[in-house]
């Protein structure tokens, strides 16, 4: 897959950092503002997708990236599940047990385990969308060969 012109490459490089940071902001503030894991994860994945589209990538590298992001997705979901069932393991027998202190509403460090779920889900969604994109690109490369 070919990259685009130098202007596009340079501008995406500048933009992607901002998009990425905004995605991280949305993920970490998911319990305070609208948004959260899914919306932020989609933004983070968007940053990666823009970079790949602008700079282009080789077939073999795309395959490798797809494998990596797919592993990342599984790992993030397992982390979220372990966190959710930590109540079961610890002995309180409540799935999705919120065992951390709730904190003061409106502060960043509040909401117990909810921010952690947001982070894991954010990673999971970013990796999943990237995997879908890469899979579709790889099929396209397969056809055009």
């Amino acid at each position, binding site marked *: 897959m070919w990259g685009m012109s130098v202007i596009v490459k340079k501008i995406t490089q500048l933009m992607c950092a901002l998009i990425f940071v905004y995605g991280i902001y949305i993920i970490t503030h998911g319990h305070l503002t609208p948004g959260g894991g899914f919306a932020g994860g989609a933004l983070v994945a968007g940053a990666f997708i823009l970079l790949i589209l602008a700079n282009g990538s080789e077939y073999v590298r795309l395959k490798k990236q797809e494998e990596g992001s797919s592993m990342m997705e599984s790992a993030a979901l397992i982390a979220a599940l372990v966190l959710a069932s930590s109540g079961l393991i610890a002995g309180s027998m409540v799935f999705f047990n919120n065992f951390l202190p709730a904190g003061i509403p409106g502060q960043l460090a509040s909401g117990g385990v909810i921010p952690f779920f947001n982070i894991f889900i954010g990673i999971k969604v970013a990796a999943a969308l990237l995997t879908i994109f890469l899979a*579709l690109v790889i099929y396209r490369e*397969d056809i055009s060969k």
Partner: protein
Amino acid sequence: MTLFIMCFLLFLTGIYGVLTRRNLIKVVISLTIMEFSLFLMLAMIGYISGGEAPILAGTIIPAAPVVDPLPQAMVLTAIVIALATNAMLLTIAIRLYKKYGTFDIREINELKG
């Protein structure tokens, strides 16, 4: 009420597309239109004019009526599900294109009877 009727029209547009289009990708687009008409409808049912955000923190009780978060959560979940379905459909459509060299439904007819 007008808004609900427009939602329904959008839904019918989607059905029309699914039934008449001959292109695999256009069928997927029509399905997506149907999905989104339903999401709009669900979001509108949950809407209360002048409602507050449903944050009940300790002793603070909101003055205005509180919006039910359930339809919003449901719409978000349904959007995620629609994403998965669409990704799946498009993947299969691309694979079919690779096998047949066309997106035309009339030429993809191995299965009969």
